[in-house]
Each structure stands twice: as structure tokens, then as C-alpha cells.
């Protein structure tokens, strides 16, 4: 695609589009998981009232903060682990 082939300094348009799309999917997927997890943790499922009360609201804020921290923490742990074990070891589908 790059006419003179100078080491491909720029991603192509198709690659840019694919990257934006992938980013969007990752974000919505994480947003959905956050919502599911924190609804379970903070909101009782009897629905005696329709408004979020103060306690639930505060719980949701803290729950979100903790969810992001666990995300980060698990990501770090998997990176450490994969450096120790090397590729192919440990987590994942052993093809």
C-alpha cells in the first residue's frame, strides 16, 4: 500500500478504522461488565423504590473505583506471570 515502501511509517486507513472499532468494542464491553458487577453488588433486586437512594449511589461510585483497580491488578499479575513462565505457559488455551 505504501508506494515507495519506506518502512510503513503510517497505519493505513483500514487499520485506523479497525483500531477505532476495536477500541469502541473494548470500552463498551468493559462498561457492560462494570454495570453488571456493580448492580449486583450495590442494588438489591426487590425494587421497592425506583430511585437510587444515597447509600446505593455511594456504593456504586466506590464499586466502580474498585472494579477499575481489580482490572489493573489482574492485568499486572498476568503480565508478571507471563514473564516468569514465558510464552505458552500458564493461563490460556493450550491449543
Amino acid at each position: 500500500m505504501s508506494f515507495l515502501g519506506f518502512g510503513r511509517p503510517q497505519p493505513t486507513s483500514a487499520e485506523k478504522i479497525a483500531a477505532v472499532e476495536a477500541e469502541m468494542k473494548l470500552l463498551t464491553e468493559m462498561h457492560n461488565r462494570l454495570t453488571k458487577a456493580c448492580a449486583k453488588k450495590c442494588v438489591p433486586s426487590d425494587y421497592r423504590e425506583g430511585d437510587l437512594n444515597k447509600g446505593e449511589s455511594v456504593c456504586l461510585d466506590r464499586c466502580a473505583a474498585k472494579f477499575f483497580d481489580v482490572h489493573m491488578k489482574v492485568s499486572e499479575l498476568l503480565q508478571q506471570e507471563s514473564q516468569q513462565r514465558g510464552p505458552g505457559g500458564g493461563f490460556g488455551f493450550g491449543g
Partner: protein
Amino acid sequence: MDGLTAAETRDLEQRLQKHQMKQFLGLFSNLVDHCFMSCVDDFTSKALSGRETGCVSRCVQKHMALSQRLSERFQEHNAQMSGQAPPGR
């Protein structure tokens, strides 16, 4: 986005729109399933009782508020993250 032709921009917009539609349908389905499982428990009749109908309304209302609030937290988090190095991807 920089460097896309008009046709490419249109293509991107269509993909994102399709993605949003899918996302909306998914949230709708999850909400139906969750409110049904939480609110409906009486199978002595075919019609929703007043209690069940009320519960479904409050369930939807509460989930809209909850989703709104968590979206704000999520956006704050993303804004904060993009100011730093990307988080372990």
C-alpha cells in the same frame, strides 16, 4: 479522525452506528431478563399482577439511573487513563 477520506469516514460511522445498535439491543435484552427474573414469581395467572408491573417499572427506572451514574464514573476513569500511560494493554 485525521487522514480518512469522506468515504472512509462514512464507513467508520456506519460501523459505529451498527455497533451502537447492537449494544443497545444487548442492554435492552439484559434489562428485560433481569427485571423479569427479579420481579415475576407468581405463575398462578397469565397476566402480570399489579405488584409485578410496579416492580418492573421501578426496576427499569433504577437501572436507567444506575447506568447513567456508572457511565459518568467510567468516563472520568477513561479521561484520567488517557492522561497517563495506557493501562496494561
